[in-house]
């Protein structure tokens, strides 16, 4: 158990700051980011035996943090009246331009199925290339391409419907 705790401690010591920054970038709120960081490491602890070494460890925790944060946004939207907020969005229908807006990205990702939303966030908001997204998600690059293109297509439809 001691070695187990030591491993968790090492991960927290090395990646705590990066994960806090990660959570803040998605949630845009200090308190929420702090909570999310702790929740992320709680999940890391639960699955510590799966934690990879070296650079892959950050990818793995990054993915856990991203999933957690996007779920948080989804839950918040669900609590506050959900997708109605989409009507408050910009009237610009160019999806690529729209997705550069973090707030819009948050909202769109929140209504997308989980793997697709996470892939879209990593690629379109974080600026990760598709190969890197594939590594983080543990899927093929082809799958990432499919996720992102489907997301963009659906987002465009979603925005069009909301504006109409």
């Amino acid at each position, binding site marked *: *158990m*001691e070695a*187990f*705790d*030591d491993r*968790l*401690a*090492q991960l*927290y*010591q*090395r*990646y*705590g*700051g*990066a994960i*806090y*920054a*990660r959570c*803040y*970038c998605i949630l845009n709120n*200090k*308190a929420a980011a*702090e*909570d999310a*960081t*702790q*929740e992320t*490491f*709680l999940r890391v*602890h*639960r699955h*510590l035996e799966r934690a990879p070494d070296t*650079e892959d460890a*950050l*990818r793995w925790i*990054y993915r856990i943090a991203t999933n957690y944060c996007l779920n948080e946004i989804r*839950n918040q939207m*669900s*609590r506050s009246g959900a997708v109605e907020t989409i009507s408050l969005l910009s009237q610009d229908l160019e999806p*690529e331009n729209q997705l*550069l807006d973090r707030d819009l990205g948050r909202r769109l990702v929140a209504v997308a199925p989980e793997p697709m939303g996470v892939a879209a966030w*990593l*690629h*379109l908001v*974080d*600026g*990760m*290339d598709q190969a*890197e997204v594939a590594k*983080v998600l543990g899927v093929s690059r082809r799958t990432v391409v499919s996720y992102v293109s489907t997301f963009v297509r659906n987002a465009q439809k979603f925005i069009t419907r909301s504006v109409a």
Partner: protein
Amino acid sequence: MNDSINGTTHFSTFDLELSLLEGESSLKHRKIAAHLQGCAQCRDAMAELKRLHSEFETSVLPRALLNARSEQPTTNSGLSLLPRTFGSRPTPWHLHPAVWAPALASAAAIVLALGLGSRDTGPTQPAADLQAKGDAQLSTYIHEGGTTRQLPSTGVGARAGDEVRFVLTTTSSRTRYLLLISVESTGKTNVYWPPSGERNSAIRAPGRFEVPGSIVLDDAPGPERVFALLSSLPLETAVVETALAALARNGTDAIRATEVLDLTPTGGSLTEQHSVLLKHGSGARHPE
């Protein structure tokens, strides 16, 4: 690098993070440093990352360490040292890095910080109305709209999305195992503690045990009764689930009325049990 956005080339935040972690000697760092010279967007992104790292080290981590010092763990179990995230935030505490930096050298200190990094100032009073026979006490707290309040065991209306946390307080020092499990009116059971496995796990005693994390209520209608089962030996979750399924078959009134579960098949290792009724729904949150 991603060149798909706006036709320009930028490093992803992940790349920037790796560069920070790997240090100045790495090839990636040098490559990114060169890129930052001519890219204001990536430079801003890197500056923001550095600011957040600094914020973590000067604000988030010291608070955790402060809490680690103010409470002493009684076990080395990692599961008892998990973060607490529920409740209102205390007064921000700013400690000079020099004070806590030496503690960073100790991995154990970080584990301690993780486990006891509570910013939870809400649930501190025991729930007088939740006492059952035995020396343990189950308290249930609900968090919504930025406030935390304690629930009576008799049940309360709760909205979908509300977060619920459980705290078990024991005064006896004997080793006991906790299984926190619930049954919904649909017959669905949920194991809230332990987080995984087919048997319950020992909790530290005496003391206050906060079940890590919170549960977020869904919009399923009807009651959900949560049982905290304490035993001298680990309980088989499957046995308890069978008893809960039988309870659910008797209908929602039975779930509402049954505060003590019949667990004869556990062979007498069950020493104490407590329960609380949660009533899901989107309506008023007053007791029925």
